[in-house]
Each structure stands twice: as C-alpha cells, then as structure tokens.
C-alpha cells in the first residue's frame, strides 16, 4: 500500500460536543439497562409472552449485525477477489463491524433473562446442536474476537509511530508477527459471517406457523446472507460519505461506484430469489390480498429495487444518488429483518406489541455508543485514510455549519495529515 493510502489518526479532542451528546444518549440507555437488571425485563419493556423479543433482538442484534456485515462484504471484495484497491476501506469497515457486532452481543446479554447461566456456553458438551440460536451465539462471539484482532494492526501501527522507542519497537515487531498470521484470521472473518448471517435468517424457520407466508420460506438463510452483503456494502458507502464530510477522508469514486454496482447485483439477486420463491411455492395469490402485510412487502421490494436501479444505471456516477441508494439498501435489509422477526410474526389474538420508550432508548443508546466509539478510535488510531488535498471550501463550509465542533477537527485533520511521518 503506498504511503498516501496509509491510514492516519484523525486527531483532535475526543470529548467534544457531539461526543458528549452521544454519550448522554448512551447514559439514558445505561440507566434503563440498570433498572432492567434490578426490576426485570418487563419493568422497562413492552415485551410480552407473545412478542418475547420485542425490538431488541430484531434491531439491536439482527439489524446491527447486518450493518456490521460491511466488514464481511468489503473483506470479501478486498481479500478474496484480490481487489487491493479496496484496502483503504477495510479498516473503517472492520471497525464498523467490530463495533456493531460487539453492541449486538451486548444487547443480547441485556435481553437475556438469565445471563449468569452463560458460563455453560464455554462447555461444548452442553451445547444443543439443533438450536440455531446456539450456532448464532457461538459464531458471533468468535467473530467479535476475530474482528477486534483484525483491528489490532491499527493499534500496533499506532504504537509503531509512537515517539517512545520501546513502544515503537513493540509495535513494529508485533505488527510484523501479526501480519504473518493475518491470512488465517481473515479467512475466519470470511467463514464465520457466512455461517451466522445465514443462521440469523434461519432463526425464524421454526416459527413457520406464526409467520406470514410471504416471509416464511426455506430460503430464509440464503436471503439473510445476500441481504447482509447488500446492507454491508451500503453501510460502507454511507460511512465513507459521512467520513468524507466530517474528516475529509479519502474518497475514491471509482471504488464506491464499483461497490455500489456489486450492491445493485446483490439487491437484484435478492429480489429475484424472493419473488421466484414466492411464485414457486404458490404464494402469488397472497399478493392479491391488500392488507398491511402487502404494504410492507411492496415497501421492501421498492426499497430494494430503487437502489438497484440507481446502482445499475448511469445514476451510480452521481455521488448524491449513490449515497441515497446505499442508504436505501441498508433500510431495505433492515426492514426485511424487522418484518421477518416482528411485523410478519403473529403471536395470536391475545397479544399486541409496540416498543416502550425504555426499549427504544436502549436501542438508540447502543447505536449512539457505536458512533461514539467509532469517532473516538478513528481520532486516536490510524483507521481512516485522509485525503491530502485541501478541503474544498464548499465542503468545509457545509461541514462547519452542520456539525458543531467540526472546525477544530478539520483543522486538526488538515494539520496532521501531511506531516505525520510514515515509518519503515
């Protein structure tokens, strides 16, 4: 990787105003979580015996990890297809994945009624191998470790560039050793998401009698796998756009266009498989019943086909449309996940569910914490590749008006960018 593509710490004060706002949101969630452990899940949530997972499982786990699949999809493009030019995107994508998956895992622990019994999970003899959730749990725990190991080079590079000779030597030596082991770790980072992302879809296979037939299919695992690739690619394109606005992060149009085209193919593949499956199983007549389910189905398809249309035509060249398409593809995957786990799920006439403010605040707080961790790590460690040309005045003006505290960051980034010396 050439030196101008080497990631650098963004620098600047970590505890600025946006950070305080994000941490405050998480603080509210933390309060709710504390109360949940003291008084029970029912005390903070509207979950009930019919809707036992509420929004925490569908959103905090299934949607968060779908977004976190950015690490998986970019990794597949970069390492398996050997598209080395994706390299500048890998660290931000892996950091996104590591954070999203860690928060998904943390959310599971909050949602578990008896988390202290988790110690049994360390004993493979106790595993019920027919449980899809067991597969998800073990695989996600392993993958969280793999993702943070994949982030270690950023820490070690940071150490290598340190002014302390001992730290610098430590960083260089261990950075080199880790680099040798990396292919085997990366291979795990390819395998594990293939397994658990499909299993996340497979979770609802068993609930067939309670799911609307437009969502219940044997292909749930396959659909979940394709949709996570699309969500992941979309999330990384959106992330790149946001980092460009905020930090003047490197922005290689060609790569983003290419990724979006792959995303377009994924979306088409997903929609095609879904429609063909519905037709092949004689469920087309359900599309003639005009009800709320049909509305959600049409909405999902529209959210899927609009970005596919943008990505697979010349419109993909427009940065604005491309980011819009990427955002829509994330929303499309998220909506399908929420519909499969919640909207299309019918617990019977006795049960109704709408999330409580407590549940919503935990979901929002976890997301805010994710953003906060991403910003803090990017400022302190070499994760993001910063553009070396000066910020265009129009962009700078936009950012300064939109983000309080961005001025300091831009200056810090600009100051730091060209002067940070490369090592070796």
């Amino acid at each position: 990787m050439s030196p101008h593509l080497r990631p650098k710490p963004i620098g600047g004060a970590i505890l600025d105003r946006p950070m305080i706002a994000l941490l405050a949101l998480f603080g509210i969630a933390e309060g709710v979580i504390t109360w949940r452990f003291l008084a029970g899940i029912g005390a903070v949530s509207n979950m009930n015996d019919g809707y036992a997972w509420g929004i925490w499982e569908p959103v905090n786990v299934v949607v968060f990890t779908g977004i976190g699949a950015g690490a998986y999809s970019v990794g597949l493009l970069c390492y398996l297809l050997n598209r080395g030019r994706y390299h500048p995107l890998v660290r931000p994508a892996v950091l996104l994945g590591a954070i999203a998956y860690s928060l998904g895992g943390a959310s599971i622990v909050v949602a578990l009624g008896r988390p202290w019994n988790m110690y049994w999970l360390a004993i493979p003899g106790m595993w019920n191998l027919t449980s899809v959730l067991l597969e998800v749990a073990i695989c996600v725990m392993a993958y969280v470790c793999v993702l943070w190991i994949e982030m270690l080079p950023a820490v070690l590079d940071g150490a290598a560039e340190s002014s302390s000779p001992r730290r610098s030597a430590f960083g260089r030596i261990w950075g080199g050793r880790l680099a040798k082991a990396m292919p085997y770790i990366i291979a795990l980072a390819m395998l594990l998401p293939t397994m658990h992302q499909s299993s996340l879809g497979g979770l609802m296979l068993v609930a067939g009698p309670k799911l609307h037939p437009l969502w219940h299919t044997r292909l749930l695992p396959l659909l979940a796998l394709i949709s996570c690739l699309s969500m992941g690619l979309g999330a990384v394109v959106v992330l790149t756009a946001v980092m460009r606005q905020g930090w003047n992060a490197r922005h290689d149009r060609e790569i983003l266009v290419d990724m979006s085209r792959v995303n377009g193919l994924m979306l088409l593949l997903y929609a095609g498989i879904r429609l063909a499956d519905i037709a092949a199983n004689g469920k087309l007549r359900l599309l003639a019943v005009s009800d709320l389910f049909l509305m959600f189905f049409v909405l999902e398809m529209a959210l899927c086909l609009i970005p596919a249309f943008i990505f697979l035509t010349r419109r993909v060249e427009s940065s604005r449309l491309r980011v819009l398409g990427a955002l829509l593809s994330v929303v499309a995957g998220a909506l399908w996940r929420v519909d499969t786990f919640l909207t299309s799920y019918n617990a019977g006439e006795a049960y109704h569910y709408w999330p409580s403010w407590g549940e919503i605040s935990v979901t929002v707080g976890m997301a805010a914490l994710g953003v906060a961790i991403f910003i803090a790590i990017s400022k302190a460690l070499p994760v993001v590749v910063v553009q070396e040309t000066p910020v265009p005045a129009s962009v700078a003006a936009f950012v300064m008006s939109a983000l309080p505290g961005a001025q300091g960051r831009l200056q810090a980034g600009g100051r730091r960018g060209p002067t940070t010396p490369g090592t070796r």
Partner: protein
Amino acid sequence: MTTVRVSRRGFLGVAAAGAAAGAAAALPRRAAAREEVQPEPKAVGLLYDSTRCVGCGGCVAACKEANGLPYQDEPRELDCNTKNVVKTRHLSHPVAGGATSAFVKRQCMHCVDPSCVSVCVLGALHKEGRDKRDSGGEQRGSGIVLYDKELCLGCRYCQIACAYSIPKFEWAKAIPRIVKCELCHGRADPAKGGALASANPACAEVCPAEAVIYGYRADLLAEAKRRMAREPGRYNPKIFGEHDGGGTQALYLAGAGVSFKELGLPDMPENSPASLSESVSETPYLHGLTPLALYAAAALVVRRNHRAEAPDHAKDEEHR
C-alpha cells in the same frame, strides 16, 4: 496503489468457493428432511374432550394448587402463574343442540418433536431423561417436556418457536424463569406403575366429567377413537395432535361442526416445524465438512493474494 490485479487463478478459486457456498445453500431444497421423530412407546399425555367439558374450572384450581401457583381470579390466558386454563370460545355458527360456544383447555401440548426442545440453546427444555445435566429423578421414554432452570439463558427462543405459544416468562422478576406445564411430573408415584409412574397431572385427577384424562398416548388415541365410534355424530372426526405438527402428546377432541381453529389451535403442517428448521439449517453444514472446506479455501486464496501483494509494498518503499 495496487493496480487491479485479479488473476485468473484467483478468480477460479473464488468461483470454486462461491460455487461450494451456493451448492451448500441450495442443498436444503433437495435434501431429505431429517427423519420425523416418532412417539416414544411409553409416551404419556392428556386427552381433552371438548364435548364433555362443562367449564367448571376445577382443573385450573387443581393445577394451581399442585404447582404452588397463586390463584386470584379465574385466569383467561396462560401466563407465568397459570400453566393450565379453560377458555370459552365463541363459535362462528351455532352447532347441533344450538350451542354458540365451546370450551377448550390449554396447557403444554408435550409435542412428539417439540420446537422448544429443538431451539433451546443449552437444552433447558428437554424431554424427560435427556437433560444435559443430571437433575435427578428423570427417566427416558415418557416424552414429557421438562424445564431445567439452571441451563436456561432466558433467551425466550422457546416462546418465539412454540406454535402453541405455551412457554411463559416471568417478566416482572429480576431472576426470571420459563413457566409451563410439566404434566405434574413431580406428582408421579413410582410405586403405582404404568403411566402414573411417570406423572400424575392434577387436572386429569380432578376432572369430574373425564373431559381430560391422563395415560399412555397410545391408549389415549384408542380411547378417543372409541368415543368417536360410540357416538359418531357427536365429534369432529379429526383427533388434533394425532399427526398435527409431527404429533403431540396432548390430544384434542372437538364437537361436531366445531373446527380446531375455532378452539384456538393453530393449523399445523404435518411435519414438525423443528424438523423443517433442523434439516434446512444443518444440511448445508454436511456434518462440519462445509465450514472446514470453506475455511481452507478462503485461507488459501487470502494467503496467495496476500503474497502477491507483498512486492507492491516493497515497490512503494523504494519510491519513497
């Protein structure tokens, strides 16, 4: 910056891995479902006859007492304090005799191939005698679905998975449990022999009308058929639970003209949801072969690409 270098071999490797993944994903459509579970020969259960039930609620009170659960008002639904309930269901059409409603007793169905047991992460919900940990006093063969709270994570996947929405959760407790009918396994009397050696459900013991009776599942099926043969005009000719969803150990008889759906029992596929979930989820793994093969393929390709990239690093360094 590295130029785009997708070697032909690289692409072939990826194509092979992709094809393997694709084949693995496509397999479940073709693979035979994992074998349907058959009822164990000594499986015990309940036979509930809606036409005999007078809705006295005696079984509800007896259940509460036998299980040490608080009893205030007559419960309308199963909940974490109610393992057994009798509901009045309004019928869409009046049936013979002019009745516009029917009673239905609800408790755990003790499925032959239970979804809750299939999905339970550590096997907290398990068939009697198949606990992963020796919790004492369990013998194989009864098919009773029991709960071991020491292995329960409180994930509530059982609640999502159960087609009958039977398992209940203690939402208001900091140390919650899953609550459901265990067929009064604790009231079994080994000295008595027969089905009573496995369990002795208080609901069946107390019912004055023999609307709910307890025994071996095979005997209960025979009794249901006997009742139908004696008074064919009285019954819906189907026995719910004989085959539904792979069969249940709690069996239901409905009155003539009354559908089980009206009684609140779901339309179940013939095969158990657990068999569908397990065969679709497990088949692509080919007993662990697929993940190993995918890992090996990925490691090979990544390592080769990694090496191919190394000279670029060197070049970059030279330029600097």
